[in-house]
């Protein structure tokens, strides 16, 4: 058989065919690489979106959990206060003490504010073995004169079923309505006894 195609043409065709194959292979490789990169990018976007969704969900849940914890804490505090009130209302020593102190007020005296502390001063200072059943009652009020104040202190200090230590913390004269009164602050402390023990709570 004869071959009449010039060698130059055959070389050119072979070169062109090889270049075409390389271009095709390159295009295919680039396409695959592009698809891979695009796929990775889309996957990354999907992952980031999922992470953002989970974070939002977690934050929402965290807020709910915080609110729930706060509510539980508030309810616990409320329950504790109610328990304290219940204990105080059930405390006969305190009731008797208040009855005793209230009976010592005369018509010249007026009680404005009373602060009851069932903790002892040692307990307040953080002593671990502080005795319980110590009541400190701080009385704030007004009286007509220094004479009536002295008489009030005398009556409060008088011997009784529950002896208390009375101490005038401060007193001062001040105008009230169209006259003058003596404003006082008296601290009454009932020390612990074996018979009566307090709950060790504070109520204001």
């Amino acid at each position, binding site marked *: *058989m*004869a*071959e*009449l*195609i*010039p060698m130059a*043409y055959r070389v050119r*065709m*072979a070169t062109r*065919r090889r270049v075409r194959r390389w271009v095709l292979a390159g295009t295919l490789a680039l396409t695959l690489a592009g698809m891979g990169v695009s796929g990775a990018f889309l996957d990354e976007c999907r992952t980031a979106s999922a992470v953002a969704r989970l974070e939002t969900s977690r934050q929402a849940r965290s807020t709910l959990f915080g609110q729930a914890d706060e509510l539980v804490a508030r309810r616990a505090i409320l329950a504790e206060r109610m328990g304290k009130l219940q204990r105080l209302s059930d405390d006969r020593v305190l009731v008797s003490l208040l009855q005793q102190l209230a009976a010592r007020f005369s018509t010249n005296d007026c009680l404005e504010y009373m602060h009851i502390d069932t903790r002892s001063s040692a307990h307040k200072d953080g002593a671990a073995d502080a005795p319980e059943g110590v009541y400190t009652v701080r009385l704030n009020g007004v009286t007509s004169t220094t004479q009536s104040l002295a008489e009030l202190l005398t009556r409060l200090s008088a011997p009784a079923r529950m002896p208390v230590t009375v101490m005038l913390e401060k007193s001062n004269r001040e105008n009230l309505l169209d006259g003058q009164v003596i404003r006082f602050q008296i601290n009454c402390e009932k020390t612990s006894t074996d018979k009566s023990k307090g709950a060790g709570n504070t109520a204001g």
Partner: protein
Amino acid sequence: MVFTKSKMVLAVELGGDVIRAVQVKRGGRQPDLAFYAAQNVAPGTADTLVERQLTALEELFRVQHIGTREVLATIPTSIVVTRTAQIDKQRKETPAEQVQTALLNCLPFDSKDLLFDYWPIQPANTSLRSDVLVVATQASVVQRYLDGFEKLGVTCVHMDVAPCALASLIPLTQQTSEAIVGSVAISRDVGFFVITERNRVLFWRPFDLNTATQKGVSVAGIGASLERVGDEISKCVSHMVGTMHLDNLGELLLFGYGSDDLVVTEYLKNRFNVAVRNPSPFAVLQNGDKIGADKQATHYGTVLGLAMQEIAGVPAHG
């Protein structure tokens, strides 16, 4: 490599009056035919033959929806020069240069526009001189064909002459491939006679049937000018006996117009005292039996031989 083991190829015979194409899947135990088709070439002058053939090929591509990108082609014998040359191994010139020198005296065109190929026509021996058969054509004409193929979007991977293509088919149609065989291929107004041994062309001679067409004979081909064809074959046989010392023509094969005519067969059988056959070229294909009844089947001998050629070291069948 151009060819892989299994590949669909389109073989095109660029005839002077008609182009024929077959698409064959090569690489199997036997090649498989995809389709075969023919397209007439518009009449015109010889200098416009290439363009007219390419126009017909374009029409064929359009009608058949051909998607093959690689084409094998044969060019017409009318644009090819052939002669026997002698290579002297003692001379300083290379065999190609000696062939080129031998061609200078017989070229009908400018020798600078020369494109040729050659092959030995004698078995390898130790003698210092050997005969080769040369085919030559104009490089510019081949380039016009190649440019036309590129415009059609196909690449021509092999371009041959019609007798060589037909020679590739002949061993496949024979019981014994050792004999020297003569083959006649006739188209509408031209033809060639080729002598082959195995698939090697030893000699070929083109001839035309102008006398028949000039007389206005309606039956084209060999049947209308039997005497002339017989004379041409006789000249070839004489040359074969005189120069090549071969006188044992095994059989004569007929392809193309008139090959199925009993008158022609009997005439050639009686004149040359040789067996005459007109085998169907499609018989060499796996599914070729389906086309055997087609009267035009023998016209596709050249183009099927082209499709069966070994291309770039890859045979047509496994």
